[in-house]
């Protein structure tokens, strides 16, 4: 598969795929080999190292350097002319016609994903040196982080659906291990199991989708699938409804990994893991895997508009649903977790309306500013001695100035205030939805933008402003975090300022569009979407104004209630407000009771069903077996005067039956 090459003509609709040169092959392989070696060495040696991060962190810095080199080559140096390179490591599953290779694939989409994954991954590794400094099990932590990096890199480099699935499960494993890092806490042990199982529900769909792709198209290799599909559809070998089915099945997997409604329940609980994990896995990288999968499969989804509408609907619903919960949460990490759900919903909405590039753009900027916000929250939690309840924070801005300023930048970015990163990408998501004819998506999206600005500045206000509610015993010890933690924050803050402008300008003809055009060209062609000229003083400008206006309103409202000038009667106003809508407040605060519903359905009712099965097994099936045995024994007792023991009696009954059967068989057989 690696050996095939197509005509290098990006205008023909198929991006060129060439065999990777030996340098690229080596570098791509190293991206996977280094972290898995780092994992293995840290597992074996970690406990004996005085600095358990000494293998894991440098490994990821090298990985970051290699990934950045390759990505810059591809995106800026245009080394592969917008096409892709592919390389075969070895044949993984050679089962007759079902042949799956361990192939790596690198195109501009991979390059963007690599930049996000390795940059944030590297910063989180460095940050963790400080954050985990006092944890006795930190060697395990760094080992798991390296395992995660390996799995995530494999996920974005894999060249076929099954290899993506393999990586998909492996990131799930690393997530499981890291959520349950503090395994002695019962809540952590419950959260990691929940995360894995909810993901598995989605994976049923993903796995069936892969089987459907193989049985209909006959291969799982991305390039071959996308290449063969148009002709097979045109020739009637594949019905269009099958494509809808395949896409919906793949989307099930995406919903699990990217925590879309109703499979969103695992992500907030996943905050049981150490905060660097929340930043890396549960905000900036792994949860994007679903978005990546749909984007990577864009040529399939483009043939199934019905499936895309569902993607958009689920996405935008999750966006507003999660934002409504983030309004009232008290745990700083939970606010950010629901915010992540909401922003992922934006990305799916973008995919669903066909704004493929906007989705990946938002994926990248969100990875940066949400990574920043989580690491910032970690710094806060660290500073106030492992307290996560915002009601026990307040007025931290003077004691933790760097954390405060960087998180403020992150909040402005996610709120969509120009010229920060979130402004460009969110505006593109909403603007494209409107212009592609999905005004309802746009409208809900604008409401979500308002809510986002509000809950983020509620978080900022409760944490950094107003009066201090920090535990008086802890208060004197509150401190800014060490440089290993603040330097990553500063780097991410700088990126949150500049990345949007770099990728999103000039408006209407942005850099990221140039990068990803070759990737999404076939899908857009199939859907018949053609870019219209950008009107800064027309529709586009108007949409920008609306977005910025609502963001400002949300921000100012939160600022007045929770912000700098907070005084007591304002707090009473908030209480009065919530008291006026108790149902809404309680509903939001209790996450619309989804955990209770799941508990009822799957733990209580599901448990009873399983109990019933077990009862059936013991009393009915095994009961019948023992019943037959008892009957045989009784019959034996009556026939014979003396009881010679159970075994013989059983045997007698059996032998009698056998002779009967033998006679029948012989009569039939020799006739």
């Amino acid at each position: 598969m690696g050996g095939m090459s197509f005509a290098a003509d990006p205008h023909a609709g198929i991006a060129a795929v060439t065999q990777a040169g030996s340098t690229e092959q080596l570098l791509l392989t190293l991206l996977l080999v280094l972290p898995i070696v780092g994992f293995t060495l840290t597992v074996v040696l970690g406990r004996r190292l005085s600095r358990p991060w000494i293998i894991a962190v440098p490994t990821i810095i090298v990985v970051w350097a290699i990934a950045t080199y390759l990505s810059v080559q591809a995106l800026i140096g245009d080394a592969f002319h917008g096409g892709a390179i592919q390389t075969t490591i070895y044949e993984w599953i050679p089962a007759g016609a079902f042949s799956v290779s361990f192939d790596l694939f690198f195109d501009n989409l991979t390059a963007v994903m690599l930049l996000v994954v390795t940059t944030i991954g590297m910063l989180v590794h460095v940050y963790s040196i400080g954050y985990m400094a006092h944890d006795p099990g930190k060697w395990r932590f760094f080992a798991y982080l390296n395992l995660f990096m390996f799995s995530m890199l494999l996920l974005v480099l894999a060249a076929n659906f099954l290899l993506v699935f393999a990586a998909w499960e492996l990131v799930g494993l690393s997530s499981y291990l890291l959520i349950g890092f503090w395994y002695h806490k019962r809540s952590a042990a419950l959260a990691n199991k929940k995360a894995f199982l909810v993901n598995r529900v989605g994976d049923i769909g993903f796995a069936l989708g892969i089987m459907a792709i193989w049985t209909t198209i006959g291969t799982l290799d991305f390039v071959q699938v996308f290449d063969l599909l148009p002709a097979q559809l045109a020739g009637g070998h594949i019905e269009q409804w099958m494509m809808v089915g395949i896409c919906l099945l793949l989307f099930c997997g995406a919903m699990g990994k990217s925590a879309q409604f109703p499979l969103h329940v695992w992500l907030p609980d996943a905050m049981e893991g150490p905060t660097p994990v929340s930043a890396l896995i549960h905000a900036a990288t792994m949860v994007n895997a679903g978005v990546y999968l749909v984007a990577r499969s864009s040529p399939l989804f483009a043939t199934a508009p019905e499936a895309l509408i569902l993607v958009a609907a689920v996405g935008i619903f999750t966006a507003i649903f999660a934002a409504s919960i983030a309004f009232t949460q008290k745990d700083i990490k939970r606010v950010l977790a629901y915010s992540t759900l909401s922003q992922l919903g934006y990305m799916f909405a973008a995919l669903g309306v066909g704004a493929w590039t906007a989705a990946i753009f938002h994926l990248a900027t969100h990875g940066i500013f949400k990574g920043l916000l989580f690491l910032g929250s970690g710094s806060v939690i660290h500073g106030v001695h492992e307290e996560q309840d915002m009601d026990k924070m307040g007025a931290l801005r003077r004691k933790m100035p760097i954390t405060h300023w960087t998180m403020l930048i992150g909040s402005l970015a996610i709120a969509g205030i120009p010229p920060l990163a979130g402004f460009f990408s969110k505006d593109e998501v909403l603007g494209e939805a409107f212009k592609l004819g999905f005004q309802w998506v746009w409208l809900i999206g604008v409401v979500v933008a308002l809510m986002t600005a509000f809950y983020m500045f509620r978080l900022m206000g409760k944490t950094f402003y107003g009066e201090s509610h920090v535990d008086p015993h802890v208060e004197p010890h509150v401190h800014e975090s060490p440089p290993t933690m603040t330097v990553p924050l500063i780097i991410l803050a700088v990126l949150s300022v500049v990345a949007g402008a770099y990728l999103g300008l000039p408006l209407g003809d942005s850099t990221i569009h140039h990068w990803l055009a070759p990737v999404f060209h076939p899908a857009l062609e199939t859907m018949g979407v053609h870019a219209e000229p950008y009107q800064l003083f027309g529709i586009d400008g108007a949409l920008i104004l609306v977005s910025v206006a609502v963001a400002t309103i949300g921000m100012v409202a939160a600022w007045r209630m929770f912000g700098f000038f907070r005084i007591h009667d304002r707090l009473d106003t908030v209480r009065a407000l919530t008291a006026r809508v108790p149902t809404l407040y309680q509903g939001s605060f209790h996450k619309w009771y989804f955990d209770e519903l799941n508990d009822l359905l799957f733990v209580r009712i599901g448990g009873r069903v399983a109990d019933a099965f077990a009862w059936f097994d013991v009393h009915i099936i095994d009961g019948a077996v023992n019943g037959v045995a008892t009957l045989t024994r009784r019959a034996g007792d009556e026939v014979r005067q003396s009881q010679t023991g159970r075994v013989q009696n059983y045997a007698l009954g059996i032998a009698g039956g056998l002779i009967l059967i033998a006679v029948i068989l012989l009569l039939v057989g020799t006739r």
Partner: protein
Amino acid sequence: MIDVSGLPILSLIIFAPLVGAIALAFVPGDNVRLVKQVALATTLVTLVLSLLAAVGFGAAAEYVLPGSEGSSGFRYVETVPWIPFFGILYRVGMDGISLLLVVLTTTLTTISVVYSFGPIKTRVKEYMISFLVLELGMIGVFLALDLFLFYIFWEIVLVPMYLIIGIWGGANRIYATIKFVLYTLVGSLLMLVAILATAFTFQAANGGDWTGAFDLLTLRAAGGFDPTLQLFCFIAFFLAFAIKVPMWPFHTWLPDAHVEAPTAGSVILAGVLLKLGGYGFIRFALPLYPQAAHDLAGIIVVLSLIAIIYGAIVAIVQPDLKKLIAYSSVSHMGFVTLGIFVFQEQALQGAVLQMINHGIITGALFLCVGVIYERTHDRTLARMGGLSKPTPVFAGVFGFFVFASLGLPGLAGFVGEFLVFVGTFAVSPVAAAIAAFVMVFAGVYLLWMFQRIAFGPVSDFLKGLGHHLTDMDRTEVLTLAPLFALTIIFGLYPAAILDLIQQPVTDLLVALGSAPATGLVP
């Protein structure tokens, strides 16, 4: 490299354990040290012999049955007339599938013997003799090409297992072992009747000539039995094999047997004995009675689907660690029968893979249960908790096999299951979709089990054990290490198995009249 082509290598593998067992009979029983040494040496020699057969397998010539065209697919074939009057032969041979299962047997037997050095304290000599005779029987089943010979080995297996559970088992061992033996005996006696019926029919059709009447190769080549005879014989074989697998609803002997068996007995029971059933389908029932197999495949597929889902659901609520794994075996073995009876290339390859991988992974899980049991003398999940803290190495190893059993890609369990899935989907998407729900159920029972053992605070029960709660000792590490390595190797490089079974699988599908799928790509 030793050249094995001139040696009766298969007979050496089969009878090496017998030689060891006889030698053990002359060792005084109180010389436990010597008993262990002889037993270990015997299993090691057998293991090495099976590995030699594996090394020479590619170069060995394929046997051609006189008077027939084309290869039989078997290598190292040895034929000796045994009961000439009835045409009964001592004929053994090996193809890729039996090679893998023999090596699995010799590996797990060696591990079991080493593992038993510690836990078994009474009647060590008799125990070791039982294990060696058991090994002889299992290897014989996998290598016999004569129906009568096959039957003899099949029954030999029963006796030592009966003793192992009945003498060295738990409190309720007599009930469990009698149930095991009688249940299995019912099936195998029916099979004997079917074997006799087949031979009689063949002999009658050949004008009273018994030559080849019990020979698999001859019967297979002759083929075309009367449909009614096929149906009766197939049902008889089916019952024998279905009980052994065990298929739903013939599975209830398994949890009882596992709970009462000593650890090494469970390892062999789950690791090898259950595979005798799957192997029997592939080697005998399908080639001899293809018509009946086709007619009944639908029912068997449904039973397999029930086993997969039902076994997993029942496993969820088991309070006893061994029962839980026993029910998980019912579920996992459902994939074997599903893969066999959809008559599809990938599914059949997956079924064979699943047999090997389930043997490795579940064998390892039972060893892990043994590690817990040796320290706590308990297997009740509710009393466990927090083992990650006092026994981190064990928790890591146990977690590794839990995820292997869960079908984590990259480890051995995944490839077989996925191939069965894909092949089933190609035949019946609905069946595949039903089976796919096991992905969640398996997660529930395995992660629940792992959580209750390894996570949370250390339970009061375990705290009470104090310093007895040690991490894995050297023997335990030594016995689990090869299974650990194989789980990774077969997960990353399943070609090691797939290359060996490609030809037998294709041959079987041709014999069944289902041409292997070529995929839809021209």
